[in-house]
């Protein structure tokens, strides 16, 4: 997998999502139940708004001093006997990981959930190098055995599948003979995965936050697979986006609180782990520890107008409230990062050539901005993308002409007066029984879905009525 998950056009992907009744019902029921759970967990914390401000402050402070904290992290990792590698590109990152694996003559690899490893196409590189690689997060594992179906959510990658579909995949690919009960399916996966953990030469994990002053990484999971991935194999490789760092455990505690409550409505997930190179005297942990810090375009975002997007802690709350995501699902975004945050960062990482539709796939309802635990102004960032896309003349010539005309009409009282005079007679050709039934471009976009009455006659407009009411004295 890479950033891009689908080569088809946006329209085709969307139609696919809308046509998938099953996925939509799974997504909407997940959204509905997560809404209550998130709200309960957030309210339980007390003044949630104050917590959000603290979260935002921590993230902004860290980003403003990112060089300092990354250096501190590197020094501390090395002091503890670990190795840190700064990868400028996805190719550098995945090659480094492949080289470590090859140097260990490792074949068997277990992996816990990590979106950034998808971004750098690590799985592909390792599989091509002949490795036997297993995803151990249950959702990711399901997707892997279903011929690497792409993830559709950044926290719950298999959200688009239900238990019956999972049972079918297990039956076809694993020879599973049980029913579709989640407990039995999970138990079966556990049996397969336990053996893989014990056999693995290398464990690869993501990283929720690196803790700079400790030279450690923090993993937030519910299945415990992250801990096994890190603890059993002799070599551990952790991979992080370069912005995923906190100064100390104090800030980590705040962000873990915001993350768990926002992501899944839990006070804390089942496992909150802080780990790193195995220190002298410690009984478990990897003998060799590598931390790969991935830039892959993030330096370009840092300090730009989209800087706040780097505040993201990948909780997925914006996906869980998004009405667009609700109806088209994650795959329609064509990126491993879907939903509102995906519509902001995917074009930054992957460019407008492939992703110029994403910022427009929003009604700008602001639900994402409202829910974000670190206060990223997501809908405003979508508007900024739109402005850039317009500036680069990537919207159609007809639209640019219409918008230029609208800009004039909507700023000039005399021209708007003409609109009021001509709108009703002008719409007669397009109307039947007082309703507009067809029209060019944008009008068709409206009447294809909804009825629309004709605009009022000038004599009936509000403006005319008001002037008459005020005795013609108003200016």
């Amino acid at each position, binding site marked *: 997998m890479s950033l891009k998950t689908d080569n088809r056009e946006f329209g085709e992907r969307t139609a696919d999502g809308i046509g998938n009744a099953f996925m939509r019902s799974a997504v909407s029921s997940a959204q509905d139940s997560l809404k209550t759970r998130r709200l309960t967990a957030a309210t339980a914390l007390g003044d949630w708004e104050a917590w959000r401000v603290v979260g935002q402050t921590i993230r902004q402070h860290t980003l403003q001093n990112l060089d300092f904290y990354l250096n501190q992290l590197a020094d501390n990792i090395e002091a503890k006997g670990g190795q840190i590698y700064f990868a400028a590109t996805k190719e550098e990152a995945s090659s480094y990981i492949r080289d470590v694996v090859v140097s260990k003559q490792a074949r068997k690899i277990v992996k816990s959930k990590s979106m950034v490893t998808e971004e750098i196409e690590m799985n592909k590189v390792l599989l091509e190098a002949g490795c036997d690689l297993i995803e151990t997060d249950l959702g990711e594992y399901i997707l892997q055995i279903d011929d690497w179906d792409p993830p559709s959510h950044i926290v719950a990658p298999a959200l688009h599948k239900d238990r019956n579909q999972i049972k079918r995949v297990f039956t076809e690919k694993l020879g599973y003979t049980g029913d579709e009960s989640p407990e039995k399916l999970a138990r079966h996966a556990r049996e397969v995965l336990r053996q893989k953990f014990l056999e693995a030469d290398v464990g690869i994990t993501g990283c929720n936050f690196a803790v700079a002053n400790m030279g450690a990484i923090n993993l937030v999971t519910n299945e415990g697979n992250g801990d096994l991935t890190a603890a059993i194999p002799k070599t551990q490789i952790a991979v992080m986006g370069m912005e995923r760092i906190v100064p100390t455990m104090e800030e980590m505690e705040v962000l873990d609180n915001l993350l768990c409550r926002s992501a899944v409505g839990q006070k804390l997930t089942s496992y909150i782990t802080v780990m790193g190179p195995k220190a002298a005297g410690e009984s478990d942990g990897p003998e060799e520890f590598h931390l790969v810090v991935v830039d892959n375009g993030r330096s370009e975002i840092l300090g730009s107008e989209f800087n706040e997007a780097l505040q993201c802690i990948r909780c997925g709350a914006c996906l869980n409230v998004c009405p667009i995501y609700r109806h088209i699902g994650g795959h329609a975004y064509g990126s491993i990062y879907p939903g509102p945050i995906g519509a902001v960062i995917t074009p930054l990482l992957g460019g407008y050539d492939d992703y110029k539709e994403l910022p427009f796939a929003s009604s700008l309802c602001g639900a994402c901005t409202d829910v974000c635990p670190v206060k990223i102004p997501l809908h405003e960032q979508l508007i900024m993308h739109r402005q850039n896309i317009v500036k680069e003349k990537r919207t159609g010539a007809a639209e640019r002409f219409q918008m230029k005309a609208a800009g004039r009409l909507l700023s000039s009282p005399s021209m708007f007066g003409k609109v009021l005079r001509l709108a009703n007679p002008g719409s007669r050709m397009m109307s039947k029984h007082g309703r507009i039934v067809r029209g060019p471009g944008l009008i068709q976009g409206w009447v294809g879905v909804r*009825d629309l009455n004709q605009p009022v006659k000038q004599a009936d407009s509000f403006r005319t009525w*008001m002037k008459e009411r005020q005795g013609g004295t108003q200016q």
Partner: protein
Amino acid sequence: MKVSIFSTCLVDLMTPAAGKAMVEVLERLGCELDYPASQVCCGQPTYNSGYLEDSKLAMKNMMLAFEHSDYVVGPSGSCIAMFHEYPKIFKGDPDWELKAVALKEKSYEFTQFIVRVLGITDVGARLDGTATYHRSCHMTRLLGEKETPYQLLEQVRGLQLEPLKNSDNCCGFGGTFSVKMPEISGQMVDEKCDSVMETGADILISADMGCLLNIGGRLSRKGLPVKIMHIAEVLNHTSEPAAAKGGLSS
């Protein structure tokens, strides 16, 4: 109290009844109204589409149109929320920043003005019927006004108000989004229509005409017998049964 009416281009062109109702309610509550004739549109359609420079023309026109007003009141949470965005948009612009702040500070959505400035929740309205209220995203999230429509509607005699499921989900309007991505917007408005029908209400009320035209237009297309009314029309309704005076939809 002197109040300048901001009619919004949508009300001007498509649904004057909402504007007229707003004027009649405010006059009844003792406001002295004027209507700055040079006003047109808040600039939101072009702004949200990414055409910043084209929309600044409309914004500047509005700042000048209401320059001498004490209060600016409009029948749309979304358009007033747009006014409230002006200071961000003109930040650092020596000619316009202060004007933008001034307009923001004196602009109120219609129900917000009645409750928060006039201090009134009972406007003496009566409307016999069962209704549900659609809260618009821009009014609740961008303008930050969640309560005043409910406070006013609770005082309307004869009106039974039913809660709307998933009331914080967008109806799919989103300005140009509704016409640029009609496939997605259509799914959103369909779900909203289903929620409206589940309430059993025969009237759908909102404080934003964009949402009402969207949901109402879809209800009408599906042949569903729900009348749409702008909240100003509800608050302007006095003694006659709802059917006699009529709402915006036919």
